[in-house]
């Protein structure tokens, strides 16, 4: 059980160190900032953690986010749709892209890596075509409030992240569906023998990942007050890193809903700390790479002992 808390320990340790060396770090506003800054990566990572739990992967999240942001913004600004229905359609498109990856994986038997890589290219292309390469701005206040507003002193983004984390936690640990996701990641054959509809669930986790990606795309658009055709570039690697740093296994079958969020907060904290410490951007990349390695090293030690014991 100890390794479950390993990433939490790393998170706390990291934040303490940063607090010691930068007086600005532990200000309430700064901590809220970190939460807010990490929330979009965290939401993508939450969704992405589902295919990863089944032993798959989804690289298309970055372009799905961009496409969903662009379409929701475009429908409102260009076609006069209501905020609600525009976002609804964008989320549906995200689900559709995810489901398509799932179909390619399940029926086409393509490796998830390539299936989602292909759709990543397609999604990026469609975004550029739809936006004609230009950002879409002029969004109504209701839309913008999603990503930029706050309720009381807590930013909406943080509230949404907490809700989604809680929902994912319940989904994974309390629902039959969640149990079946773990089962598929542990062994698809075992799951099949237990009468679990492996194909359908596999398709659905990609759909959920697409949904989370689309939702984060909408939030990103709301945060930036405009839909960017190049939004989310590199988001997939960041989200995967968050999932792994949080202690979930890339091989599937092991992990929980808090891991991806903690992973995102660790990375967000590092980025924020490096900025507050005024570390030059090139050096930041060096430090970030090394910290990633060290953090995962600390986390994986316990896993390894487990594996050796068997």
């Amino acid at each position, binding site marked *: 059980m100890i390794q479950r808390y390993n990433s939490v320990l790393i998170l706390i340790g990291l934040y303490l160190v940063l607090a010691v060396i930068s007086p600005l770090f532990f200000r309430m506003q700064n901590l809220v900032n970190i939460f807010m800054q990490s929330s979009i990566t965290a939401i993508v990572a939450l969704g992405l953690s589902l295919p990863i739990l089944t032993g798959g992967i989804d*690289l298309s999240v970055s372009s799905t986010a961009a496409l969903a942001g662009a379409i929701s913004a475009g429908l409102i600004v260009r076609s006069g749709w209501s905020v609600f229905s525009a976002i609804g359609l964008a989320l549906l498109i995200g689900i559709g892209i995810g489901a398509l990856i799932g179909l*390619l994986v399940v029926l*086409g*038997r*393509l*490796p998830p*890596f*390539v*299936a989602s*890589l*292909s*759709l*990543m*290219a*397609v*999604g*990026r*292309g*469609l975004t*550029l*075509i739809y936006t*004609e*390469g230009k950002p879409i701005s002029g969004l109504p206040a209701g839309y913008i409030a999603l990503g930029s507003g706050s309720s009381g002193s807590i930013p909406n983004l943080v509230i949404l992240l907490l809700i989604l984390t809680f929902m994912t936690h319940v989904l994974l640990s309390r629902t039959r569906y969640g149990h079946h996701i773990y089962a598929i990641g542990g062994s698809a054959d075992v799951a099949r023998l237990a009468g679990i509809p492996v194909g359908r669930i596999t398709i659905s986790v990609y759909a959920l990942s697409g949904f989370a990606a689309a939702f984060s795309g909408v939030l990103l658009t709301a945060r930036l007050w405009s839909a960017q055709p190049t939004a989310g570039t590199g988001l997939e*690697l960041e989200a*995967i*890193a968050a999932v*792994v*740093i949080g202690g979930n296994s*890339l091989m599937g079958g092991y992990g929980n809903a808090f891991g991806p969020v903690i992973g995102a907060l660790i990375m967000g904290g590092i980025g924020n700390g490096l900025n507050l410490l005024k570390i*030059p*951007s*090139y*050096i*930041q*990349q*060096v*430090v*970030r*790479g*090394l910290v*990633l*390695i060290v953090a*995962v*090293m600390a986390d*994986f030690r316990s896993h*390894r002992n487990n594996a050796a014991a068997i």
Partner: protein
Amino acid sequence: MIDRGSLAIVFAARMRRSGLLLAFLALCVVLSILSNRFLTLPNALNILRQSSINGIIAAGMTLVILTAGIDLSVGSVLALSSVITAQLLVSGLPPLMAFFSGLFVGALLGLFNGILVTLFSLPPFVATLGTMTFARGLALSFTQGKPITGLPESFRVLGTGFVGPIPVPVIIVLAVFLIGMFFLNLTSQGEQLYALGNNPVAARFTGILVKLYIIVVYSVAGVLAALAGQILIARLDSAQPVMGMGYELDAIAAVVVGGSNFNGGSGGLAGTLIGVLFIVVINNGLNLLNIPSFWGQVVKGVVIAMALLFNRVSVQERKIDRESV
């Protein structure tokens, strides 16, 4: 001592990838119908030359994926080794020494990856993601974000020279693949590499030095990424810290399109070579047909997915009768 029988066996095994080969040939036929410029000798050489960078990287990536690993750092390794080589060249080091120094940097970074993966048991994805980030940062801070230009002519032969009608990079990439295929298919080390990719535990029980092999494989991937970088800077006459971004995905795509799978132990360089050519030909076709860049990505994604599906269907049929017995 290579007898004809063994070559025939090797060839037969390679032909299992024929589904992909067919898809590739189909793509070429379609392109030559759509553009009369496609099927010309200069364009063929052109395609081969453009395949050289991704080809060399993908060759290393194939080895890594054979061991059930992955190397995301190749693009950054390429950049860091290239800027160091360029700096050495500009400061007057003899080209040959600069060249080998660059390869050495690649080997060191690969070695680092290999050690993280084996001795520290890090998942290859994370270990190489870390290297990818920090090596890029090193390349940027080494150059302060600026290109290094003005490489000596004798070095540039590596990228721009010809042997007869054939560009030097084409010769290098073919040499890399020939040596690699030779090694993988005809030597004991190659066969052991497949074995350890298929089941590292059993390989260890058999006395194969699994960790050493894996470290060597990552180092080779690093050297090859550096070699690709040397060719690239020789062609461009300049080294930039931002070179090679996204090359890891291109290389992985080529390897996977070429039929290797992430579980390790299956696939090979022949497939990768077709995979590399496949992707270059798509890009070449998009340019020849002057397809607007927005649509280019859509076409690329769809074509790759279709090719894989096609390949999967043709493999599937054979797989059924083998598995059910």
